[in-house]
């Protein structure tokens, strides 16, 4: 069988309506064995595609799908899962927000502690000459930092 140059147009021609085919090609088709074969091939292809048979156990499967959906409707766990799935972004945003808030609170607490530590250090330079005897006694004894801070900020 001799390869034909016209065959490059065969795909286009084969899928058009019969009356759309150019007369020139129509004439050629009658005489060219190669194009005839391809023409018949595409026409057969179209028929075969329409005749596809599938062995499907559709009724049985349809029932199983319906049952699965009904189970989903009645199962609280599944429902919770669906709801969580649907609201996962909102839940994640709230968790992230709470985490961020706790980080901010921790930073604020830390800065307060840092401030207190600085005050604690500066107390060593407090002039004790004006303090009464009781206070001097306390200062000279082993005192806790908390007590020292309390004294430093008291108005007495």
């Amino acid at each position: 069988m001799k390869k034909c140059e016209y065959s490059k147009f065969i795909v286009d021609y084969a899928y058009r309506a019969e009356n759309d085919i150019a007369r020139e090609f129509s004439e050629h088709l009658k005489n060219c064995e190669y194009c005839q074969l391809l023409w018949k091939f595409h026409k057969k292809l179209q028929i075969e595609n329409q005749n596809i048979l599938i062995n499907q156990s559709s009724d049985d499967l349809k029932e199983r799908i319906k049952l699965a959906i009904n189970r989903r409707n009645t199962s609280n766990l599944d429902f919770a899962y669906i709801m969580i799935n649907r609201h996962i972004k909102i839940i994640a945003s709230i968790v992230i927000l709470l985490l961020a808030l706790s980080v901010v609170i921790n930073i604020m607490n830390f800065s307060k502690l840092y401030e207190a530590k600085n005050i604690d250090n500066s107390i060593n330079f407090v002039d004790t000459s004006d303090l009464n005897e009781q206070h001097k006694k306390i200062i000279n004894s082993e005192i806790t930092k908390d007590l020292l801070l309390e004294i430093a900020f008291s108005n007495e």
Partner: protein
Amino acid sequence: MNESEIIKRVIDGATQEFNKLVEAHFDSVYRVIFLYVKNPEITEDLTQDTFMKAFTNIAAFRFKSSFKTWLIRIAINTVKDYFRKSSIKNRYFVKCELMEIQDFRSKPDELLESLEFKKFLDVAISELPEKLRIVYILREQEKYSYEEIADIIKKPIGTVESRLFNARKIIQQKFLKWIGEEK
């Protein structure tokens, strides 16, 4: 009650109504998946997955396309996910030894009517590149319109047309090779 009303009722909580949608679209979904994977057991699993996904996400349906188009899109994505997750390198389940066809060369009509030709077609279609295969299956075997296919694969109509043309051309080339007209 039309389909849109059924969908709205399902979204509003009348989930039993979803069975009507399963009934109406089961065959289309099953056929498209089967034509894609060519294996009844896998088709059953993926069909069930498709409907479960549609049921779970029905609130996301925006009524911009037809429900069938939306469902077929889910089916195709389910098939793609399946192939991706199962890491199947060879996606083509149809494997058969093609018979020697030398005897038919002088009788093209007999060749086109033979069982071997049907087997050849099965293999040729299943070996098409994925992008071309889905367009070919939707158009030639399921008779979807170009607009519907464009909607399903989310590409312009021009892309659908060119993919369809290329698919037909590839099958033609395989045919010529099969009958020994081209190397």
